[in-house]
């Protein structure tokens, strides 16, 4: 019998509503906190929350379909009294809620696709931290190098590195030149972990805000299906009861509504409708929170855009002067570095751009 299907469904919806209310009380405050204070560790709480929500939405959508079928069967069984149009409102309501829940499931599917992006980004952040550690150690090594200034002979006298005054100066200029480039690279690497964390935190803020909104919305939506089922069940049960004793109370259905049972039925329907009204108010309130969610979304999106711009601007920065390339030591004063080489089997010394042929010493 269809009414038993509705009875069972009503019980299941009550159970789901209670489960959703309990879960919402647990997850929504956590999401609200993540919305304003996103952290790297917060993603797990978000994942748990979304997973629980997705499960309940899937169950709710299944119940909505079941409810529509059960109500259709009831109406068909009572077709002589209840025309199909009498349950149109219910079908409309369930269809709309069903679509909304389907949209939410699509949202979850999109999120889970992006979830791997978040996981990868956070993993890449660890890699950037290692890169930054390597890069940060480099400027210290180079800029700390002034040992040429303190070279000493066996008697403790300072030995100047001053061949034509070039070598020491060229070397120190090279140290400064390379320190600038190394510092630039370290600066790029150093900003990446922070930029990634800011971007993922911005995204978490958006996601948590939307998640909290969905919790606020899903609870009354599922309650709405439950109330609507209750109303129709009361209607069907009442009509069945009246149909069981039509001879006592009247000749046609019009008379039925004049009976006490009819009034009780109407009262029940009206009570249900009032309950629906209350739930609709909750939904309107939930949509009111949409404004807050939009603000959170815009805030998160702004952070993401800011970080994107920071990355772009850093990428565009020259390494030194106007060059985007790493400075070449030979470009600085390469010709001033002394060198010794063999040309056609003859030793040649090059100092300050001048070549000296040396005789082969015995």
């Amino acid at each position, binding site marked *: 019998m269809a009414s038993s299907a509705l009875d069972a469904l009503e019980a299941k919806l009550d159970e789901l509503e209670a489960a959703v209310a309990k879960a919402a009380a647990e997850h929504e405050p956590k999401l609200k906190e993540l919305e304003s204070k996103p952290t790297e560790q917060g993603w797990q709480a978000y994942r748990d929350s979304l997973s629980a929500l997705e499960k309940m939405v899937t169950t709710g959508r299944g119940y909505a379909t079941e409810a529509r079928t059960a109500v259709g069967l009831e109406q068909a069984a009572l077709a002589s009294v209840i025309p199909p149009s009498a349950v149109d409102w219910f079908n409309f309501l369930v269809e709309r809620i069903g679509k909304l829940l389907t949209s939410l499931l699509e949202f979850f599917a999109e999120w889970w*696709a*992006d979830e791997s*992006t*978040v996981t*990868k980004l956070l993993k*890449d952040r660890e*890699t*950037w931290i290692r*890169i930054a550690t*390597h*890069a940060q150690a*480099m400027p210290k*090594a*180079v800029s700390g*190098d002034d*040992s*040429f200034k303190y*070279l000493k*002979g*066996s008697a403790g006298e300072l*030995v100047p*590195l001053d*061949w*034509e005054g070039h070598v020491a100066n060229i*070397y120190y200029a*090279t140290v400064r030149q*390379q320190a600038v480039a*190394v510092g*630039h*690279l370290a600066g*790029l*690497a150093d900003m990446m972990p922070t930029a990634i964390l800011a971007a993922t935190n911005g*995204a978490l803020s*958006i996601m948590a805000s939307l998640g909290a909104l969905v919790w606020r919305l899903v609870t009354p939506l599922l309650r709405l299906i439950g109330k609507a089922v209750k109303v129709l069940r009361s209607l069907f049960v009442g009509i069945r009861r009246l149909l069981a004793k039509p001879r006592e109370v009247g000749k046609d259905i019009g008379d039925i509504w004049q009976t006490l049972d009819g009034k009780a039925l109407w009262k029940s329907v009206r009570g249900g409708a009032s309950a629906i009204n209350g739930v609709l108010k909750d939904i309107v309130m939930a949509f009111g929170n949409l404004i807050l969610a939009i603000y959170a979304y815009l805030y998160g999106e702004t952070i*993401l*855009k800011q*970080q*994107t711009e920071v*990355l772009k601007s*850093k*990428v565009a920065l020259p390494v030194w002067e106007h060059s985007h390339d*790493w*400075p*070449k*030591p030979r470009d600085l004063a*390469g010709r001033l570095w*002394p*060198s*010794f*080489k063999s040309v056609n089997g003859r030793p040649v*010394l090059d*100092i300050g751009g*001048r*070549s*000296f*042929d*040396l*005789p082969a*010493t*015995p």
Partner: protein
Amino acid sequence: MAGLSSNVGRIKDPLGDLSIDNTEHIRVVSAGIRQQIPVWDRQADALRQISAELQNLTLRAPTGESFFDEFLTAHREMITRVGTLATQGQAAMRDITGLLAATADAYEKAEEYNTWLALQRLP
């Protein structure tokens, strides 16, 4: 001094007075120069490690469907930029170690020549 090219004599200027024995100073200076080579080798190693770590990054391109796509595009540009600089930096470090080694060689070779020249002038 048959066989010597005419410019060889000018080496005396940078190396100082040939009557003074510079051998020890040249040894100290060339050793000092060579001691710098490992500093730049370590820099090159760090840059090689950076290049290797860049290969471990998993998000090398936007997915085309992600909320993060614009950020991922900028991230990809940053990977390319850091990778290019790390490669260029390694070449610069090799260049510097080469210059330092060549300079130390030049010091030693010139001193070797001057010692030889001084010996040739002995009565």
